[in-house]
């Protein structure tokens, strides 16, 4: 028996139109929105954690990066404008811009009293060098009763902000780059 050519079963692969992968290449906007989402998330988290505004400012516009050579220094040896104040574990941090770079000074106590200036050793600052003495209650009462303490840090040795803050600043910079 002959099989008619017409009746022969022919396996035909299902001819489906290939479904377009949606969207095969996402439009650039998607990246852009994700950045905004990250950004707003981080801003939300960090504004709801307690960060001193001044610390943030200082971290964002770090004072130690290349001193903008104040022209006034040529004429007088007196220091020129500064004033970044930060509450730092009970001490107030001032950044004094001198003719030879910025110096971080942390002040504890009543500024009416005579001054006691401290200077730490190599690679240390007041936290790692004088903490033991000032945490000793008898010494702290003796010194703070008589003096206002000025902790001077050698250039580049001031205590840094928290690690999280650094991450935050890096994140912001990264986001700005992406946008």
């Amino acid at each position: 028996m002959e099989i008619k050519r017409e009746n022969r079963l022919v396996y035909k692969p299902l001819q489906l139109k290939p479904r377009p992968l949606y969207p095969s290449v996402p439009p650039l906007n998607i990246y852009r929105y994700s950045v905004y989402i990250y950004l707003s998330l981080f801003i939300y988290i960090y504004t709801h954690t307690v960060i001193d505004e001044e610390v943030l400012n200082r971290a964002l516009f770090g004072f130690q990066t290349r001193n903008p050579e104040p022209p006034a220094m040529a004429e007088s040896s007196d220091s020129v404008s500064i004033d970044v104040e930060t509450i730092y574990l009970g001490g107030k941090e001032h950044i004094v811009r001198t003719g030879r770079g910025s110096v971080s000074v942390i002040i504890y106590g009543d500024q009416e009293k005579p001054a006691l200036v401290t200077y730490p050793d190599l690679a240390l600052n007041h936290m790692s060098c004088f903490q033991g003495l000032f945490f000793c209650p008898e010494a702290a009462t003796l010194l703070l009763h008589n003096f206002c303490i000025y902790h001077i840090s050698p250039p580049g040795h001031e205590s840094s902000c928290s690690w999280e803050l650094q991450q935050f600043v890096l994140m912001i910079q990264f986001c700005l780059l992406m946008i």
Partner: protein
Amino acid sequence: MGAAAICPDDPVLSVDDLTDQIIEVLNYFGLGAVMCMGVTAGAYVLSMFAMKYRERVLGLILVSPLCRHPSWTEWFCNKVMSNLLYYYGMCSLLKECLLYRYFSKEVRGSAEVPESDIVQACRRLLDERQSINVFRFLQAINRRPDITEGLKTLKCRTLIFVGENSPFYAEALHMTARLDRRYCALVEVQACGSMVTEEQPHAMLIPLEYFLMGYGMCRPSQLTGSPRSPLSPTCISPELLSPESMGLKLKPIKTRI
């Protein structure tokens, strides 16, 4: 990010520049004569400051001070440290060098004895330092001039503390010998490294108190001080103020005047 890395184009500051920074800070805050307290390199900077601006310094409290050129061993140590800083940054070997400089063997620990809390805390704080900044301060200190000659001209009272196990012990003795004996006192703290402020702050208490009494500064009275303070005059009679009776864990202190 307070301590960002200093731009490498900025000129390296000498110790002279560091003393000038201090005077600018004092001028900024409108301070007249001040009391100064420094540790090792800081003590060197402050004693140099006291020599340059004699009228601005009331007194000096120096902890393991330096005054001469670096000795051969110190010079070698500093060279090793600056090379490590330059090529490897804040590596563990460098931290060991620095801890050797700061602390005595007892607190640094050994195979049997674990290192103490202060050393661990210091190690953590050292991690935060930017190696280039430390490198620059180290260079300034390693190139320091000898200030022995100027010491004789110092007229302010000086109180020197030195740990017996400090690498700068000889330096402190030399400095005391050169200072005017009428104005200077040396306190040697036994079983202690360079950083007396961290290792044995209690040992500094009584000498500091006597030193400040010379300026007519009193210990806090009961009204202003904390009522628990053993320094309050009404709490304890003065003859009981000797270290033994205060119940502090004091190691014996030799005092040379």
